[in-house]
Structure formats: structure tokens, C-alpha cells
């Protein structure tokens, strides 16, 4: 059905960006209000999708193939809810983080631009608008990442910008091929017309390759760790938790809704799965060897993105039905859990870094021990990253492992198992520093405004997604097998 509220999650942050630029003196309060409004509108759209099913809206007064189309189905609504909540937490944290700093004036406009393009990617209904939103996202993300202004941050984010452009262009080439072949860019129409021709196959390869570069899929992840590790904490959180997810979302969308099964075949799925496996092992290994906390978190993102790609071979081998629905829902759950957990992790890591003045893991003991709530957030988020129960990723891994058994692809179990153990090793390498002989902190929470957002995000990844994941199934329209 048509719903006019669909444009709000994109329009409100844009309005916010304009307002904070126009009235820089009122920045924190305006920023907070705009963040609340954006987040509220995103959750509103999610609720509407929950209640009424798929939503659509055409802007610009033209009919569907020509106008700017927005659409929300269960998948976009779930990710929109994720970007709304994680975005809100990050905004609240950023108020305190940038307070009294000059960077504040740069942060808020860029952040709202980023948020608008994030929501735009989740809601766009045609491939060209998606491209526009992706470009906007890449630009604002690279600019935000360079906010610290250090030489490393600039170099890393310049590389990030170029890689992002390369990825978008590759994607655009694929889009152009499809347009010449089928004369439309609307995902729904295209999905109905597309045939397993060499042209479509080339488009698939180009689009997925471009997006995989943007999603930092191994071995195209090289740009991610320096860019994410050198950004200010709230920016790292948004980049790792949300931005890389957009590219993954698009790949999943193309895979499920656009390309015919003859193209999304076992070989293609195996390639994606293998790259995912490489990401899990290599990312986790580098996280274990990382000397700095934020670098560890960044490599952990590389690994977690890898898990998401392990779903493709399982999805491909599972016939349509409850088992396949479970896998899709688990994949979304995994992406969402990582988003909440990684945002919480980066925000908490930022506090530890501020307290200690550095983020070298070996010397963090004192700072970690003096902030119990923050360390607790790292522990909660960490257990979600490892995939320990109760957390959304535990459920996702359970379903994934079940899928591996049921489709006879036992080798992915080895990857999941090894990734889990490596993750436990790198998370507890950090946590073990928090048990030292430092003086006892008097209170659990030392600085509520800074510590609570991280704690809530981490808690959400564990308790909310770990014990009440059912709504994701409902949102995606799946019945699920009844126990």
C-alpha cells in the first residue's frame, strides 16, 4: 500500500542537516531533536510495515518507472529499525563526546547526511536511486572518518573515499548493463523481466563485486581497519555498525529479489561463502593480533561481515520453505546483532580511550577497571560478537549450523567453530585486563550520559535480540516452524 510516511526517514535527517548548518550555535540541542525525529520516523515506518505489510511511495509526480520510488518491505523495515536505534544511541553519545569541541560543527551536518543516505539505501526502490544514495553515503562517511584530522585518519579516509568510488562505479556499470538490456531500473519490474543471460550474469558479477568492495568482504577489506580505527568513536560506531551493512543489504536484496536462481547458483554462492570464510578467519586472526582496541574492533567487523556471507551457500542449497525462511531471518538477525553490539563496543572503546588517553590494549587495565559500566558494555557486546548465548548472534549461529548440517555442508561448521574460538580469544584478551589490582571503583556508572548509550546498545544485542528475536520473523512475513 502507499504510505506518505516513507519519505520521512530520509527527509527529516536532511532537514536536520540544514538546520544544524544554519544555526550552529544551537547545534547540540537541534542535533538531539533531529536525531529523535529521524529515529522516531524510522521506527514509525517499521511499525507501519509490521501492521500493513509492504509499503510503497512514488515521489515527483511521475508514474512508477520514471519517478523516485521508495519502498519498504520486512527486510528494509528491520534494517531501518536498526539504523534508527543505533543512530539514536550514537547521537546521544556524540552530544557528550563532541561537547566543547570544534569538530562538533562538522560532525552534526555530516552525520545527518550520512543517516539520510543510510535510510535512503534501505528504502530506495530502484537501482539508480540506490546508486545516488550509496555515493552520498560514501562521501559523508569518508568525511566523517577524517574528523580526527590526524595524518593517519586523513590517509585512511582518502583511501576509503577512493575505494568507495571504485565500488560505486563498478556497481553503476552493472546497473547500466541491466538498463540497456531490460529498460527499467525498478527492482520489482526488473526482477520480473530478467533472464539468465550472459548480460545479466555480467551485471551480477559487477554489481556484487562493487558492493563487496564497499562491504569490505575479504580480500577487499584492506581499507576498512585503518579507516574505522582512526575515526572518532561515534563515527567508528556508525561506520562499522551501519555503513558496511548497507552494501551487504544490497547484495542480499539483489540475491533474493532481483537475479534469477539460474544465476544465483551453487558456484556463485560457494564463491561468496568462501570469501566469507576467509573473512571470518583472517579478520578474527588480525583482531587477535591487533595492538589497539579500536583496530581490534575494526578487524572484528571484517570477520563479522564474513559470517553474513556464509549464509549464501546455505540459502542456495535450502529449498524454499520454513528452513530457508529461518536462514534469511537468522541472517538479518546476525546483521542487526552485530550492528548493536559493534556500536556499543566502539562507543565503550571510545570512553576507555578518552579515559586512558590511548587505546593500546596491553596498557588499558586501569582505565577499564575504573569504569565498570563501560567494561561491562564491552563484555556484553563482546559476548554477542563471539556468539555466546543469550545474544542474537547465538541464535543466528544456531540456525546457520543447523542449515550446514541439513544441507550437508559440514565444512562451514569448521569455519564457524574456529571463528567463535578466535573471537573468544580476542574479546577476552581485552576483558582479562579489567581484572587487575587497581583501586576499586565506587559506583557502577561513573558518567551516565556517556556510558548509558553504549550499555543500552550492548544490552539490546544480548537481551532484546537474544531472547525476543521472534518479531524479526514476523516482520519478514515468515511463519517459522513451530516448536
Amino acid at each position, binding site marked *: 500500500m502507499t504510505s506518505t510516511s516513507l519519505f520521512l526517514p530520509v527527509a527529516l535527517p536532511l532537514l536536520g542537516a540544514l538546520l544544524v548548518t544554519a544555526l550552529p550555535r544551537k547545534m547540540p540541542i537541534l542535533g538531539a531533536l533531529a536525531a529523535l525525529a529521524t529515529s522516531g520516523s524510522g521506527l514509525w515506518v517499521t511499525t507501519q510495515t509490521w501492521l500493513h505489510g509492504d509499503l510503497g511511495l512514488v515521489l515527483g509526480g511521475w508514474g512508477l518507472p520514471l519517478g523516485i520510488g521508495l519502498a519498504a518491505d520486512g527486510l528494509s523495515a528491520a534494517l531501518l529499525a536498526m539504523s534508527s536505534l543505533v543512530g539514536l544511541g550514537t547521537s546521544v553519545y556524540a552530544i557528550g563526546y563532541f561537547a566543547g569541541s570544534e569538530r562538533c560543527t562538522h560532525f552534526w551536518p555530516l552525520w545527518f547526511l550520512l543517516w539520510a543516505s543510510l535510510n535512503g539505501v534501505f528504502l530506495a526502490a530502484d537501482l539508480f536511486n540506490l546508486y545516488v544514495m550509496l555515493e552520498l553515503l560514501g562521501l559523508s562517511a569518508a568525511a566523517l572518518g577524517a574528523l580526527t584530522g590526524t595524518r593517519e585518519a586523513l590517509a585512511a579516509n582518502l583511501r576509503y573515499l577512493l575505494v568507495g568510488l571504485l565500488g560505486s562505479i563498478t556497481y553503476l556499470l552493472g546497473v547500466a548493463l541491466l538498463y540497456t538490456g531490460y529498460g527499467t531500473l525498478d527492482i520489482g519490474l526488473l526482477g520480473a523481466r530478467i533472464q539468465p543471460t550472459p548480460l545479466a550474469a555480467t551485471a551480477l558479477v559487477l554489481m556484487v563485486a562493487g558492493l563487496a568492495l564497499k562491504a569490505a568482504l575479504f580480500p577487499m577489506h584492506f581499507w576498512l581497519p585503518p579507516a574505522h580505527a582512526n575515526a572518532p568513536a561515534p563515527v567508528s560506531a556508525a561506520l562499522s555498525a551501519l555503513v558496511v551493512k548497507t552494501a551487504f543489504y544490497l547484495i542480499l536484496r539483489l540475491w533474493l529479489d532481483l537475479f534469477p536462481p539460474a544465476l544465483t547458483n551453487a558456484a556463485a554462492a560457494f564463491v561468496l561463502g568462501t570469501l566469507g570464510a576467509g573473512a571470518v578467519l583472517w579478520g578474527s586472526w588480525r583482531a587477535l593480533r591487533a595492538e589497539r582496541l579500536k583496530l581490534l574492533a575494526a578487524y572484528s567487523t571484517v570477520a563479522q561481515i564474513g559470517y553474513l556471507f556464509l549464509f549464501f551457500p546455505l540459502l542456495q542449497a535450502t529449498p524454499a520453505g520454513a528452513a530457508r525462511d529461518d536462514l534469511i531471518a537468522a541472517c538479518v538477525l546476525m546483521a542487526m546483532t552485530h550492528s548493536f553490539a559493534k556500536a556499543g563496543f566502539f562507543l565503550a572503546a571510545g570512553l576507555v580511550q578518552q579515559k586512558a588517553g590511548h587505546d593500546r590494549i596491553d596498557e588499558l587495565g586501569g582505565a577499564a577497571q575504573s569504569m565498570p559500566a563501560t567494561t561491562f558494555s564491552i563484555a556484553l557486546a563482546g559476548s554477542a560478537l563471539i556468539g555466546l548465548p543469550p545474544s542474537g548472534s547465538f*541464535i543466528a549461529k544456531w540456525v546457520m*549450523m543447523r542449515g550446514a548440517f541439513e544441507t550437508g555442508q559440514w565444512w562451514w561448521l569448521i569455519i564457524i567453530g574456529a571463528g567463535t574460538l578466535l573471537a573468544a580469544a580476542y574479546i577476552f584478551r581485552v576483558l582479562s585486563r579489567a*581484572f587487575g589490582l587497581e583501586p576499586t571503583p565506587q559506583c557502577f556508572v561513573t558518567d551516565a550520559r556517556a556510558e548509558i548509550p553504549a550499555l543500552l546498545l550492548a544490552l539490546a544485542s544480548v537481551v532484546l535480540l537474544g531472547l525476543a528475536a521472534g518479531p524479526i520473523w514476523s516482520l519478514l512475513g515468515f511463519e517459522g516452524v513451530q516448536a
Partner: protein
Amino acid sequence: MSQPLTWTSVLPGAILLSSLIPGALIFLVKEESHILRGVLNMTGAIIKLVLVAVLIWGVFLGGIFETRLTIAPGLALVLHADALSVLFVTLSTVLWLVTTIYAIGYLEHSPNRSRFFGFFSLCVSATVGIALAGNLLTFVIFYEILTLATYPLVAHRGTPDATRGAKIYLAYTMGGGLALLVGAVWLRSLTGPVDFIQGGVLAGLPEALHPQLIAIFVLLLIGLGVKAALVPLHGWLPQSMVAPAPVSALLHAVAVVKAGAFGIVRVVYDVYGVEFAAHLGLLTLLGVAASITIIYGSIMALTQDGLKKRLAYSTVSQVSYIALGASILGPVATIGGLVHLVHQGIMKITLFFCAGNYAETLGVHKVSEMDGVGRRMPWTTLAFTVGALGMIGIPPIAGFVSKWYLGLGAVEAGEHWVLLVLAASTLLNAGYFMPILYKAWFRPPPDAWPEEHVFESRFETMGALLWPPVITAALCLIAGLLAAAPFSPLEWATLIARREYGL
């Protein structure tokens, strides 16, 4: 959650929350508010005790208590109270109360108490979750939570030794947890959701799946064997002795090793079914592993001079009695194994409390320093003596009852070699406990103790440290003397065995 909310569908959940909520609140308590923290601790422990008493009565009458929470379609968190879970819940609830009192006394003036008691309560909540788990998924979830909640307790002291011990503990339990998870998912993919049902659920599966079922059993056994300290998966246990005494007591008697042993019992009886497990030859595997562990643990205990290390190896050995009981086909052996779950708990916790008292009061950490402690600390040493004699199996203390039923069950099942294991173990037990008792009571005390603390108390040590071991020692005697009384551990184990074998 389609079921109506009745008290029978809330009670198991309430028992879990009665320690989880105080635990979460304790994290928020300011470090210096020890009264508030104590009140939270004790309120939780007492509410839990009352709820468990109601549960015991209800289950005895044959009531069905089940709390069900759907996590996602096809994945349900089920807390279901049957006779076996009640046995473990009661053990952990009673011992939690006693250990909390002990820990409050033991950790007085020490740092990071809010953190300690917070995780302490989480740990007990996880144990109760394991006890009440109604399906394999729930069991796995709480089993992993237990690992997470105990890590901070082992690392609590913050010394390099503690960090190292905690790391080793984590490495073992994470590896074990993964094996358990893989086994559980594998089984789930063969059969659908695996509920724990008395008599087992797998016997009806086609013969072609039997090799897979054997492989799954081995995976589950590895996962559970790590916590139950089956040789060669026991390496973490002596290392984690660096933890404070109440934690050691908790690890050894209530939570961690018991969770492993309990899990083995669950898998054998309520997943595979004991007859089916015997048919697949799995009981022999379990029996051999348990026997090796019993003998090896006892031999290692002989060679330890550190008191807590000696007790640790004794735990390695004694916990495997439970697995041994599960590995013999026949109700009498089952009773012996199950009752030992409780008996080993109360005896071992007594011993660890006493070891803690010696360390705190006199600075005595080694067996070689224990000359004459009986004269300086008669009540503690009396409690220690009861625990030690019980471990050896001297009547009328609880440990005798366990060994008697294990032996009887073995004879009944025609497994005479078990008697040899029991006899050897008893001799070895006497070998490592008797010298301690002799030194404590009959050797003259030294001129000065290694590090004596004088408490302002009319007793030999602080009241909060003295009463817990005295109480648990009394429980050891009562459980042995009144073994035939209604609601004694033995009677309850008999009830479980009757239900498992459908007698």
C-alpha cells in the same frame, strides 16, 4: 507464550529470577554500601529457598511446572521442573545461601565486592537455569552463561596467577562449550527440538542414524566432560584454585563441575535413554572414562601439598562417581550416582569452607603446615573431619550411602569390576585424607602460625566463616543418618530412578 499465566507456569521462571534480579541490582550498589548488598543477597537467597520448597512439594505430588519463552520460531527457552531438576535446584539453592553467608564474611574489607556478588548471583542463576532446562537448547544457553559468569569470579583477585588461571579455565570451557553446541545442533538437525523426557527420546530413530548418534554422544560428552573434569579434560580445575575460597566452593560443589555431571546424567537418561545408551555401547565408554578419572584424580591428590589443590584433585575423582553411576544399567546404581550429586556437594563444600578458614585465620595453605590445627580451630577441624571421612566413605556419613548404592548397583548389573574401582578409590581417599586428619589432631601445633589473624569473636574465627562449614558438616551427617527419611536426598534419588526406569 500462548499458555495462560498460572502459578505453575511462573514458578520455574520466578526461581531463576529470584537470584538474577538481585544479582543485576548488586552491580549497581555502591562499593561501600555493604548492608544494602547483604540485604539484596540474603533476600534473593531466602526467597529462592521458599520458592524451591514449594516446587519440591509440587513435583512430589506429580505437578507439572513449566515456564516457556519463545525466542524465535522453533526455538523455545523452556524451564521445566522434573524430579531430577528439583534435586539439583535444591542442592544449589541451599548451598548458595550458605556460601553467600560465608562469602560475605570471607570478603569483608576486600575490594570489588559489588562486582563479585553480582557475578556470584549470576552464576547461581545460570546453575538453576541448567537444572531447570527442559530442552537441549535451554541447557546449552545456561551452560554457556555459567562459563561467562564464573570467569570474573576466577579472575577476581586480579593477581597474575588469577589471570592465568582464569585464562586456562576459559580456554577449556569455551572449547567444551563449542563441542556441546555442535553436538546439540547436530542432534537438533536429526530429530527436531530435543526435549528432555524421562526415559529418553532417541530410541525410536532408525538404525542407519546410530553411527551419527554415537558421534553426537562423544561430542556432548566432551562438552560436558570439560566442566565435569573428566580426565583428560580436567586441566583447568587445579589451575582455577587461585580463586577465593567461596568461589572454589561454588565451582566444586554447586555450580561448574556439577553442571557438567548433571548434564551427563541428563543426556544419558533423558535424551538417549539409559537402555538405548547401553545398546549403543555408550555406557561402557562413559564408565571407562569415569573410572580412569576416579583413579587418576585420587592418585594426583596424594601427591599435592597445597590443601586446595589436593581438594581439587579429590573433586576430579569424586565427581566422576556421578558419571559412574550413570554408566551402570540398573536403578540401584542410578540412585547411587544421583545421590552422590548431593552428597559430594555438601561434603566438598564443607572441606573448601574449612580450607578457606585455615587460610584466612592462620594463613595455613599447605598440608605440611597443618600440624595441630585441630587444637587451635577445633570446630573447623571437626567439620573438616566429617567431610573427609564422608569422602572416604565411612558410615554413617553421606558418602558411605553413595558408595554403598554404587557398589550394590554394580553387583546387581553384573559389573563386578566397578567394585575394584570403588575399593581402590576408597583406599586412595583414605591415603590422602587420613594424614591430614592425623596431623591436625595429633601433631603438636607450631610455635607460630604462618599468618594469624585474630578476630573479635568468641569463636576460633569469625562467626560468618565458622557457621557455614559447621552447618554443612551437620547436613553430611543428617543425610547419612536419616537417609531413609522422607525427602532425604536418597529418597528423592530413589523417586527419580523409579520415574526414569518407569518402575
